[in-house]
């Protein structure tokens, strides 16, 4: 089927009939590979990447061949899968998990003519770029809503592993919940997994049992929302909109919007304009999108949340704008200043007011 489509493929490929399908693949039709860390229907991180891939596939149609490999373990296996993709003709490969970082660097060094895109890492080279989203900007909006919506003044946060991205999220959520409601406290539960629906559900129950009535999650499944629904408490969509849980328990959501970026970068390969870069996009560039704020949120709170969202988008506000103190009371960010991206990317401490220690 694939081959027939190639042969039907219009004027640009007219030459192909003379050269045969193999030459078309090499000359005319770029091949783009994606590797996913989880199954493509995990309801969270990987599924969301996969949906963006599908959108890109629709957009480019027959002009680009897209291949996807799901459930690729980090480390040696990722390196092998990417090498095999490169050898079989891929010109651009997206590696969609932090743990692929060194593997991407190794393969990129071996295949200088193949371009690589690595999500959420910090290493790049002439033929490997990085892309990441400022999830913490979304947490600021959700944190504000959480602070306003809690009746018990206790909000919960389910963490996976204490990496900077998650710590950014906890800090941002707490800072904005606290600004909205100075009496608020945050309880963090670490489950040592990105994806374990049963444990995520148990952790949500534990937070509810400890008096939390709004729970934010930084794991991959919809189990926390399903649990919150039964308990009548509130939560937020994470990575995907999770609109099926609106208006309650899902008050809003942080959507990872990868599709425009994928389309832009695939187009660059097609046009021959691809260049390496390190981008960290947020609400402004629409890589982080705030899902519709549901009717369960009072109109004034909704307006405030949207104002935070818009002021982040236009650059007039930074979620980690000073003054901010570290957990031990020492000064982190001075009045009127904001932290540089390097500090944020390596964030490994809580801000003042959060109780408990980061696991080590």
């Amino acid at each position: 089927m694939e081959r027939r489509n190639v042969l039907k493929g219009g004027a640009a490929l007219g030459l192909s009939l003379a050269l045969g399908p193999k030459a078309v693949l090499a000359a005319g039709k770029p091949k783009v590979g994606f590797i996913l860390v989880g199954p493509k229907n995990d309801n969270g991180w990987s599924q969301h990447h996969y949906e963006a891939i599908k959108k890109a596939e629709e957009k480019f149609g027959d002009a680009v061949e897209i291949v996807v490999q799901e459930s690729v373990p980090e480390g040696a296996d990722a390196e092998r899968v990417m090498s095999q993709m490169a050898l079989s003709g891929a010109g651009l490969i997206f590696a969609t998990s932090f743990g692929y970082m060194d593997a991407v660097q190794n393969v990129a060094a071996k295949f200088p003519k193949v371009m690589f895109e690595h999500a959420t890492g910090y290493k790049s080279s002439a033929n490997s770029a990085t892309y990441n989203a400022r999830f913490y900007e979304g947490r600021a909006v959700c944190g504000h809503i959480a602070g306003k919506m809690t009746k018990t003044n206790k909000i919960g946060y389910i963490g996976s592993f204490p990496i900077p991205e998650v710590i950014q999220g906890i800090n941002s959520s707490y800072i904005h919940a606290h600004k909205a409601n100075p009496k608020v406290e945050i309880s963090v539960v670490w489950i040592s997994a990105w994806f374990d629906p049963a444990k995520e559900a148990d952790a949500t129950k534990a937070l509810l049992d400890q008096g939390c009535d709004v729970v934010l999650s930084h794991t991959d499944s919809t189990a926390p929302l399903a649990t919150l629904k039964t308990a009548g408490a509130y939560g937020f969509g994470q990575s995907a909109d999770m609109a099926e849980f609106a208006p309650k328990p899902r008050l809003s959501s942080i959507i990872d919007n990868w599709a425009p970026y994928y389309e832009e970068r695939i187009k660059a390969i097609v046009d021959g304009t691809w260049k390496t870069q390190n981008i960290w996009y947020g609400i402004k560039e629409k890589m982080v999108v705030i899902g519709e704020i549901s009717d369960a949120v009072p109109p004034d709170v909704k307006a405030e949340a949207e104002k935070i969202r818009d002021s982040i988008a236009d650059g007039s506000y930074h979620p980690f704008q000073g003054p901010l103190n570290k957990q031990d009371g020492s000064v982190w960010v001075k009045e009127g200043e904001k932290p540089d991206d390097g500090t944020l990317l390596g964030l490994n401490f809580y801000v003042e007011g959060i109780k408990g220690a980061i696991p080590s």
Partner: protein
Amino acid sequence: MDFTSLNFVVLIAALMVASVPIMLAAIGELVVERAGVLNLGVEGMMIIGAVCGFIAAVETGSPFLGFLGGAVGGAVLSLIFAVLTQTLLANQVATGLALTLFGLGLSSLLGQNYVGMKPPVTGKVPFGPLADLPVVGPILFGHDWVVYFSILIIAIVWWALKATRLGLILRAVGENHDAAHSLGYNVRRIRLGAIMFGGAMAGMGGAYVSLVRVPQWTDGITAGAGWIALAIVVFASWRPWRVMLGSYLFGGITVLQLNMQAAGSAIPVQYLSMAPYLITILVLVIMSSGKGRAALNAPASLGQNFHATR
């Protein structure tokens, strides 16, 4: 102090729910092992049960039929194990592990079109005013029917093994299949029945994860519960009531550690996360070093294949 802020009534009620999947799977596996068969494919049967139960519940709209579907799915998968080990005399350890691999793959293929759907709600048993009683209300009268069913099935297995002819035959087959055979019992048929019962219980346990605990279908949803169930059987030294004890202990510590984190415990999280496993080992050591000598209760023919020469 860490414990003062914890509400133990809520905690006990929560652990009873959290323990159901491993308890069901473990009591099923106990019967299998008492018949002398070691089926390490519990995780595979659980996840097939989880997906079949979910599909059945969504398609029929009935949670009860969902649990039934889960049990049937688990039992059907266990048939593969039964044919391989009982008819074709394949190695039980390897077949069980292959069953898990196959079950994980198949469940994902079956569940492709059901991701993101919501199953019908399994409601609590209406006990009326009893459920509002302090302390005993949430613990004894605040659950869905499967929680009570899981306890009932423990009681039934205990009674059946202890007091019925079927139980006696089952144990005889597990202790010495050659002797049982020469007494005229059909070793293979009894083991087949035990294996399918084990599959059905594991499947139901899996369905509890996808229909009540989480409730949704995603790939890999059982996330290792089957392995814990296997451990609980050994922990219980093949005795039904100890399966309940072991499941509640393990489920209890898991729930407790999450609650302690949520309550802001001073114990570092990494130690809390290890606690369920370490404490299970510790209790096991104490039990096995005591006068009971638990580990010696293993059925004598466990894991050995039977082939009638006559």
